[in-house]
């Protein structure tokens, strides 16, 4: 790899990281907008999330009296972890420079780390709501994470790799064809994705003061820039999961960036395709959230259990019979 090549790929990697950061709030705004329109409301502007962030960043932080250093550093770490995870998912191009620093398992674990910190932060002030949020988050994660891993296992068994770029390229090439296991995995992944992002029917992303809240309960004590970091991390995570589903199951339109030379045409085509996929996914999410109602907390494990079972079934099918 030449020096110039290295610079180009660094730029490409950096550009990707910047791009996901930029797009994330927009996606949140877009989903909100879709939901508002479906409810026959005008809704806030697409750019409202950016405005919220700016406002929060400018505000003074009000910190609970007994908050520790963990409480203060957690938002930044959570944000950084989510950002890294998001940048490891191939959005418009596969095989970017640092894509091999981590595979799908790493991505899941990075999100897991973020959640670990968030749950701790929820417990730090010692309020009942924080504990409630952390406790439920842990319950959801305890099922969602294995389900996610089983999906990874399914993919890895089909492709022979846990490397997302490899998976995306393999599936794009069409060698795998349509498989029962893949379909099971898709259903499972969608369920898990909803749970991970605290969307309906697991959690309501736009409320406080509801006894069933999970994510919002944990960040109840946060304010100002800390809250901004957490909001941004949440939107990054939404972007990440949608991108992930897109990269695995709808890998068309992506460009390959592994040999150090990035053709601009491919990149722009990739970005367009990615944008299109986000739009469709966002619309579907908005539609889904409008149609469906939120679940009782103790019915959540059942749904997630189904996801886990689907993942396990997909894997078993692969082990037992190679054709499926």
């Amino acid at each position, binding site marked *: 790899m030449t020096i110039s090549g290295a610079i180009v790929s660094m730029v490409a990697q950096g550009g990707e990281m910047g791009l996901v950061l930029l797009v994330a709030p927009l996606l949140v705004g877009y989903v909100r907008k879709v939901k508002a329109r479906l409810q026959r409301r005008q809704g806030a502007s697409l750019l409202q999330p950016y405005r919220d962030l700016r406002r929060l960043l400018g*505000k*003074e*932080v*009000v*910190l*609970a*009296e*007994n908050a*520790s250093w963990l409480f203060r550093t957690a938002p*930044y*770490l959570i944000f*950084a972890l989510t950002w*890294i995870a998001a940048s490891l998912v191939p959005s418009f191009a596969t095989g970017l420079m*640092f894509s*091999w*620093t*981590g*595979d799908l398992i*790493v991505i899941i*674990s*990075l999100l897991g780390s973020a959640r*670990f910190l968030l749950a*701790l932060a929820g*417990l*730090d*002030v*010692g*309020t*009942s*709501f*924080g*504990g409630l949020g952390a*406790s*439920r988050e*842990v319950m959801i*994660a*305890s*099922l969602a*994470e*294995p389900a996610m*891993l*089983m999906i*990874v*296992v399914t993919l*890895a*068994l089909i492709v*022979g*790799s*846990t*490397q997302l770029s*490899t998976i995306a390229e393999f599936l794009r090439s069409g060698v795998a064809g349509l498989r029962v296991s893949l379909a099971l995995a898709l259903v499972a992944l969608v369920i898990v994705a909803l749970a991970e992002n605290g969307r309906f029917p697991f959690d309501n992303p736009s409320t406080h003061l509801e006894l069933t809240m999970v994510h919002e309960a944990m960040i*109840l*004590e946060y304010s*100002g*820039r800390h809250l901004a970091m957490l909001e941004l991390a949440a939107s990054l995570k939404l972007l990440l999961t949608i991108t992930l589903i897109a990269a695995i199951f709808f890998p068309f339109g992506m460009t390959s960036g592994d040999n150090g030379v990035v053709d601009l045409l491919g990149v722009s085509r990739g970005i367009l395709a990615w944008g299109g996929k986000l739009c469709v996914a966002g619309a579907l999410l908005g539609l889904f959230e409008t149609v469906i109602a939120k679940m009782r907390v*103790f019915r959540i494990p059942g749904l997630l259990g189904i996801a*886990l079972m689907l993942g*396990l079934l997909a894997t*078993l099918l692969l*082990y037992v019979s190679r054709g499926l």
Partner: protein
Amino acid sequence: MIAVLLGIFALLVVGGIGGVISEKAPVFVYVGSFVLTLLLFAGGLSALFAATPMALALPLGIPWIGAHFRLDPMAGFFLAVINLAAAGASLYGIGYGRHEREGARILVFYPWFLAALDLVVIADDAFTFLFAWELMSLVSWALVLAHHHAPEVRRAGFVYLMMASFSGLVLLLTFGLLAGAEGHYAFALMRATRPTPAIAGVALMLALIGTGAKAGLVPLHAWLPLAHPAAPSHVSALMSGVMTKVAIYAFLRITFDLLGAPPAWAAVVVLVLGGLTAGLGILQALLEGDLKRLLAYSTVENIGIIFIGIGLAMAFAASGVAIGAALALSAALFHVVNHAIYKTLLFFGAGAVLSATGEREMDRLGGLIHRLPQTAFAMLIGAAAISALPPLSGFVSEWLTFQAILLRPALPQWGLKLMIPADGALLALAAALTGGCFVKLFGITFLGRPRSNAARQACEVDRFSRAAMLAAAALTLLLGLFPGMLIDALAPVMRELLGVSLAKQSAMPWLSLIPISPARGSYNGLLIFLFMLVSTGLIIFAVHRFASRSLRRAPAWDCGFPDSNPITQYTGASFAQPLRRVFAASLFSAHETVTLPPPGDTAPARIEKTYPDRIWNMFYAPIGFAVGWIATLFNPLQFLTIRRYLAVVFAALVTLLIGLAIWQ
């Protein structure tokens, strides 16, 4: 070799002296142990990389067998692991031992315990091995009984030594089988004669039971959560972090070294037990409210993970996929190292909490991050590492195990085809539950507001304890950042046991971890860490530079319902309630009863939870009951009249005569 033996002998001497002198004994014993274990650690490392195994035979024990010692790479590896953790524990002990009230009961046995641990791994014949094995049990039993006034400690000691002896006797049967009628007790002779498949199978199962009982494999784990917490904390650390690993060593030694290629069905058994152990262990840990018991249950879980790795290695070895076996075994051994480090760290932390507050019950702690900042930091690292969070070391071994599961070679057995993915799911479940479990441990103990006066007035522990904890935390981070180094160090062990080893990892670009091929999967902890540092730094800098930096302290908001009473915080039990409902309701038949007083009654509402220990009730209680029942049934035989006794003798005589008449 001689140096290692001398080192072990010196440990024995240190213990002996520690029992005799009274003044300054703790410092002498722990400093002595620290220095000696460091030396032994170096000895282990040198054996790991030595070209040929070192061996030595002494005319001890049974004369015609002699005492054989051998330091091959695997022994060297485990010697290094044991003594690394032991050095940490000794360092911790310098501080912790000072305010240990039953100090004298520990000082003698502590170095002996270390010596016995070391002896097990360098033993090269069945007698020496079992000698050291049982010695290890006996001495640790004495250590468990250090706080002997509590009845539950005595009960723990009883259950512990019973199970340990059971394990020793089962291993004795194993070796008896392997030694054959000619009495080939030396391992070299056992290696030379390959037993028939039937004998090998029986021996393997016996070895699994024998070592499993010591390692804490479900359902033979019942003693572990009783005994480990009962001991003083640095001893608990060693028991959990090291002694269980010695059992792993024994299993590997018998399975891969003495027996040769394991059969595929045995791999299925190991995988089933490993998966069960991992799952049940962590669920029990989640339900636990006692700091040290929680850690002990988590040890059970980690043993399960290690056994999953070993089971995979056995499966691959049986199917002839040597590189897969190497991958799986590397994962297992990596986990051995990891667990040795972070479990000792966590037990140190628990000990620090115990000595600072006198409390082990999490629901009476809280807010310790303010009072014990350094301990809290080290514990945070430990908790994150054991939850397999990148870029710490725990993640690496889990990642490697998954890579092994994902290899999917053509497997001959239906059992394997079913068990490997099922273990994958169990492993994933265990990993996720571990995260929850340690959020609970750290969150309830160190975060929030103090729930008792003891927690409110705690002070940071002494500098030796802190040094031990921080060193362990640094180690776990280092291993996470440079996992390739450990994988490379494991290569001689792999070559010894399996004949192949993974590719040299230090030669990989950017020090990445690429066990099989870059296309299959790779991981770079260092880069992830750097990314984290850079992006966190960047974002903090950016926010503080361009946005607000003002900050105000105020009472917690809590959605407008703040309550000044710390009792209203979530406790460990309430934190675990959703998980208890989800998992434990059916598995452990956990049960909740809520008593709400009728309106107008001022009595407090109560919630009571019960979860009977099913494994105890299924396996242990019946044995205890049966023994008690038979004992009661037979007891009247002590109180017969002389005439009746005579009748018994008479009956015996007549029976023998009748038998004789028939026989003739």
